[in-house]
């Protein structure tokens, strides 16, 4: 469960103070599929960084599964990311010239998991993300955009995270492959009960989630459940 209470983030640059977040409060239950939507400069990226334990708020509280994450050191944040968070990036960020399997295993090398167990987990994550099994040993630069993003989703799943954070995951994909990726998120949410937060500036994309938190100028302007756009034909 994610509990965010009155989070503020102020960037100080010389004499200028930029208020990226001006007091944001919300709760996300386990198993929710939430979109955080807002135009660029709205503070949604800052919020994502804080939710993803990449950054800490200037003030306010953030609890992830009951752990207070708002005042941790860099290395403690790294451990939170390792154990509780899976990231999916707009630009995929796979290691090139590296096999699909190795890419997905990567987060586990920073944990103490034995090698065999890692591989097993990686294979399962790839299957859950709908990746074709005979491509597991392909190099990541031999894959198409849709396949790459599936690998990235599998990498986000592999550490069995409490939260998957997807930052504009369809931004570099065409509509059709984008829909497949969004379908994958819906399936992971419905079938496996994964908690997913989707960060996007597009209403059309946000509507694939069950709940949309609308953010503008560092404040929540709307938080509501909507009719979800269902993707038909989820598995390719």
């Amino acid at each position, binding site marked *: 469960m994610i509990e965010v209470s009155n989070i503020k983030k102020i960037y100080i640059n010389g004499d200028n103070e930029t208020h990226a977040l001006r007091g944001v409060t919300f709760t996300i239950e386990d198993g929710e599929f939430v979109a955080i939507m807002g135009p660029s400069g709205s503070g949604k990226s800052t919020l994502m960084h804080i939710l993803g334990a990449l950054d800490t708020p200037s003030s306010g509280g953030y609890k992830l599964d009951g752990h207070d994450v708002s005042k941790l050191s860099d290395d403690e944040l790294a451990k939170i*990311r390792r154990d509780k968070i899976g990231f999916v990036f707009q630009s995929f960020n796979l290691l090139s*010239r590296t096999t699909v399997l190795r890419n997905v295993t990567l987060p586990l*090398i920073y*944990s103490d998991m034995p090698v065999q167990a890692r591989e097993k987990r990686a294979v399962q994550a790839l299957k859950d993300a709908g990746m074709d099994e005979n491509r597991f040993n392909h190099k990541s630069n031999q894959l198409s955009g849709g396949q790459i993003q599936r690998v990235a989703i599998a990498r986000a799943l592999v550490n069995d995270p409490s939260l998957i954070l997807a930052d504009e995951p369809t931004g570099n994909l065409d509509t059709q492959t984008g829909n497949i990726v969004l379908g994958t998120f819906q399936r992971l949410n419905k079938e496996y009960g994964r908690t997913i937060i989707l960060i996007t500036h597009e209403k059309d994309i946000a509507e694939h989630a069950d709940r949309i938190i609308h953010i503008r100028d560092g404040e929540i302007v709307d938080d509501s459940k909507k009719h979800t756009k269902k993707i038909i034909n989820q598995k390719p």
Partner: protein
Amino acid sequence: MTTRDIIHETFSALTANKVRTSLTMLGIIIGIGSVISMVSIGQGAQASIQSSIEGLGANLLTIYPGALQPGRGIVSSGRGAAQSLVNEDIEVLQEIPGVSLIAPQLDRRFQIVSSLGNNTNSTVIGTSPAYAQIRNMTTVNGIFFTENQNNSLAKVAVIGPTVATDLFGAEDPLGQTLKVNGVIFRVIGVLEAKGGSGFANQDDMVFVPISTMQKILAGVDYLSVIAVSVEDKDQMENVRTLATEALIKKHRVDEADFSIISQADILGTLNQVTDAFTLFLAAIASISLVVGGIGIMNMMLTTVTERTREIGLRKAIGATRHDINLQFLTEAVALTLIGGAIGVILGWAVATTVSSLGLIQTEVSLMSVILAFGVSAVIGIAFGYYPARRASRLNPIEALRYE
């Protein structure tokens, strides 16, 4: 991260750009290679000087007339100028326990003319038959003169191979005569070639009985050197002390008017010289090692910049500062260690080539190999530290945004 993971990451990082990796390594390869080969050449020179000195006679004390001035080492400026050693000193020395052989010596340079009319200017040494034993000299042709000939003022000569060639060319010198200072000598022996080792080239000398030298050729009664061989190496110091005391008493002086030099003294001085020479070579070679290290640092900094996004990703998925630091430091150390290993092989190859060309008998010591590896690891850590630290301190958010 397990060791296996680190090795895997390092291997894939280093093989990602093979040309750059090998060029960077080349700096270390040349550095370590030149240190190894320079040190081995230096040590080889030392060993060859050592063996040639020991070849002159291992348990040898050499007594020179005149006191050596402190700080002037073994280079005696006025040898022959002092006339403090005389024939009677030999009898005194013979009484000392531990003394095995004694060879008196009087040297002069003379113009020598052979019966064939050939000329040469060479050192004539008047000595006793013990000389041949003490100096490990053997004749290849004929014999060394005997004690009898020594006592009877015989006009016989034993010549070195260089003198033999100069005076008699291809002809057999045995039975031929040569004229020294107007006196005719019969050649009775030719010495085995020992190889010219710069100073005191024994191949270019003529040996005659000491009595003949003193009474007929030079017309003096003093000696220029007394060579004393000692039965056992351990007795060297003891014999030297006793000989000093005995000669001071005999000469009735307060301070020694002679000096006793052992082979150990000569070796010690020469070792100092060759050590300095080796150190000098190694210091020059080390400069290239430092340049190689800077190359490593340069490549690592470029790598960190190029892989900023990768570092950002690794941090986002849970790598701690320590993980990143370790990864990049391992890369740098792997570069220098692999480079060091190839450098050792290269240095060894150079040393072996030098040996096989017959220039100097080199030896690559285990010590210098271990040292080379130690130094490469230290260079890896020293020059990899800053880039690794920079990588580990990158902010993951900015690193992920880096274009």
